[in-house]
């Protein structure tokens, strides 16, 4: 959730904020200054987090209001928003390696899939030595560790290459994994459809809870059908809402960790590699090691995202976890949201899912088609233009073909807004959102 925008000096751009931070006058009253400064710098973050946190309530309120049908049409539902969060994390992890070091990891789905499959296989008792009752949070970490090992193995071989060749070898590795998973009967009763959480033979299927492992009171179950619901005074949160918040917490923590890395000395080296690898080497960095470690970190978080996906959906398939088009979706989100900006991919995914749902088939999510069916009078629906009725046209073009419009949007971004949403906003503001907001506030006092 998170996320507006990495704090001072994302992208190594801009250091006015650095100057302020190390300026002794800014900490003239040290007892109040540090937290205040911190808050100022993170106003944008806090605002976005608050907005996301309020979303289920706002959405619910709007659906009960007179503009219910418009709201239903326009706004993604909470379940979709949950998917935005975990897939957004995957897109961030993709951007972390591809956008920050410039090495396009076109096989990134292999890490996402690893995270997802580890969770489900463990829950089904199919991972040797891992009891099916292992808490979900540990399974997430376990998936992450698997992905790290995999990333190190793939990376050692792949980082000897650059450019298209790097993209292709990572694609090759991930497709090998895809085929393996798709056709290996051990993984699922129908490996092509992928595994479901059924539990080991003769045992109950485990529920997945997010929170503190082994402390039931500090954890809540997720999943649309299996999750907990919570009543907090006047508020009652359904299973979907609870899942949204719990997944959101994990994603927020991951985002903050990734952001920490980006703004560390290590993160700066990654940016230097993207900017000019030859020079980075010449000033004394063994770039291979940095790239490899960054790849491992990226794989780790991709696996966490995959684990959340599996935990929420309680199933995964080779095609929605390992296939190269899953990486393609992350690429899409990154480009639209802003390549080389940590938060951008999440916004990109949000836009992406909103469009898909807006143009989805009739169903739970609302969207344009059901809305038009509802509001357009019969007389208009039956108007015939060159052999195609209006109804026929909207049924044809608005019926679950979000990818078409998404593709057009993507092409538009590549042609006209190569920096993506966040890149564009930063360009207009002349700095990162967090910085601008902070300096605006400071300007006031």
């Amino acid at each position, binding site marked *: 959730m998170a996320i507006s925008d990495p704090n001072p000096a994302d992208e190594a751009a801009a250091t006015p904020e650095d100057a302020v931070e190390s300026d002794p006058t800014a900490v003239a009253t040290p007892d109040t200054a540090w937290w205040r400064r911190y808050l100022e710098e993170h106003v944008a973050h806090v605002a976005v987090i608050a907005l996301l946190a309020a979303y289920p309530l706002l959405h619910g309120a709007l659906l009960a209001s007179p503009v219910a049908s418009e709201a239903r049409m326009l706004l993604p539902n909470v379940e979709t928003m949950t998917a935005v969060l975990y897939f957004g994390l995957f897109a961030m992890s993709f951007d972390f390696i591809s956008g920050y070091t410039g090495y*396009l990891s076109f096989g990134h789905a292999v890490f996402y899939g690893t995270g997802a499959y580890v969770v489900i296989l463990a829950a089904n008792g199919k991972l040797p030595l891992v009891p099916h009752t292992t808490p979900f949070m540990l399974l997430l970490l376990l998936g992450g560790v698997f992905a790290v090992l995999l990333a190190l193995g793939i990376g050692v*071989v792949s980082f*000897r*290459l650059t450019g*298209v*060749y790097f993209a*292709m*070898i990572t*694609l*090759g*590795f991930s*497709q*090998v994994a895809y*085929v*393996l998973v*798709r*056709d*290996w*009967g*051990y993984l699922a*009763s*129908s*490996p092509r459809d992928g595994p479901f959480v059924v539990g080991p033979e003769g045992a109950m299927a485990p529920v997945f809870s997010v929170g503190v492992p082994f402390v039931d009171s500090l954890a809540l179950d997720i999943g649309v059908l299996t999750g907990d619901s919570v009543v907090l005074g006047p508020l009652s949160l359904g299973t979907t809402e609870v899942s949204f918040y719990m997944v959101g917490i994990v994603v927020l923590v991951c985002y903050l960790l990734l952001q920490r890395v980006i703004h560390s000395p290590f993160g700066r080296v990654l940016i230097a590699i993207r900017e000019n690898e*030859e020079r980075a080497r010449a000033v004394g960095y063994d770039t291979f090691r940095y790239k490899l470690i960054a790849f491992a970190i990226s794989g780790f978080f991709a696996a966490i995202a995959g684990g959340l996906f599996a935990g929420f959906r309680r199933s995964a398939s080779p095609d929605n976890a390992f296939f*190269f*088009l899953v990486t*393609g979706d992350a*690429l*899409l989100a990154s*480009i639209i949201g802003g390549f080389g900006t940590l938060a951008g991919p999440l916004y990109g995914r949000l836009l992406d899912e909103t469009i898909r749902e807006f143009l989805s088939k009739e169903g739970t999510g609302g969207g344009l088609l059901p809305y038009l069916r509802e509001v357009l009078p019969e007389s208009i629906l039956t108007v015939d233009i060159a052999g195609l009725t209006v109804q026929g046209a909207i049924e*044809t*073009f608005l019926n679950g*073909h979000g*990818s*078409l419009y*998404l*593709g*057009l949007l*993507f*092409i538009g971004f*590549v*042609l006209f807004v*190569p920096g993506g949403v966040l890149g564009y906003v930063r360009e207009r503001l002349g700095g990162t959102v967090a910085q601008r907001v902070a300096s605006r506030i400071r300007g006031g006092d």
Partner: protein
Amino acid sequence: MTGTVPVVELAGAGVVGPFPLVSYLDALAQFLRPSTLAGVFVRGLSKAALYVMIASGLTLVFGLMGVLNFAHGSLTMVGAYLGGLVMVLSVTAATGTALRFGLFFVAVLVTFGGLVALESAVEVSLIRPLYDRPPIYQILLTFGVTLVLDELVRIVTQFYGLQPISEWQEALSTKPELLTETFRLGSTTVSALSLFEILFGVVTVAAVWTFLTRTRYGLVIRAGSEDSEMTEALGIDVRRVFATVFALGTGIAGVAGALLMWDPVWGASVPLAADTLLPAFVVVIVGGLGTFRGTVVAALLVGMVDAVTTWWFVNAVEFSGLPEIFIFLILVVTLVVRPQGLFGVAEVGGH
């Protein structure tokens, strides 16, 4: 499949267990029989023919412009539908074999023309504005084009009541009776379709090869692939050559699609886009980006490996992904051992 090999029993689709070594040795003996080898060889050739058709256009475009065209698979898929459309509209149950072949060549021409027109439009309106940007943007753009094309085809096919996910049966059934038969060739049997595909592939390779080496335009393309600035300074409008090659490459992709439309293993469907794109990438990278000779050799390699591993899957190894895994392993191993591909030129002097 013959009965002599003990096909290992499967527990549902569930378990892949280790087989007794004996059955592998049996299978090996079976595999090494001349008749088996000959059959596998012919099937390998027919697969290679398809791969070379899928990949040639991609390699031409990359060689000249350095653009890895992600839309290539979608263009092949569009070609399959376009070719299928011509056939379905013109063929009736009563149409004879010779006429069907004749109509197929009409379909090939229509497909070629249609895709050349389509790609010219894409090139002029979308790719050209990006010539001055880093190649990554052109690659991203072709990725976007793929999304749009696939979805448009999905809309159109659904509108006409076709199922976009599964193969277009009507188009498959326009195949002449002759191509559904199998022949005895020496000690082995060979399907007529394989022979037709081999013939088609050979003709295409010969045509492209002749064009590249025997015509002035081909010469210009080869020169432009090596040093476009120098070529320009010799009075050649390289940008127009780019556009032509893009159109030509796309046309070949379309023709490949038209051919695949008749092959029951592939067939016209929307997933054909991804199914052809990935092997095309493998062939092009393994051969060496931008070298046509490399593409032909790599297609042979991949085709043969595909045929061999398919035989092993059918006869001994109970793992249906075997051929595919090997194809991607060829990619990985090539990039590890020889990153520039079999016939690619290593970057000189660069860092």
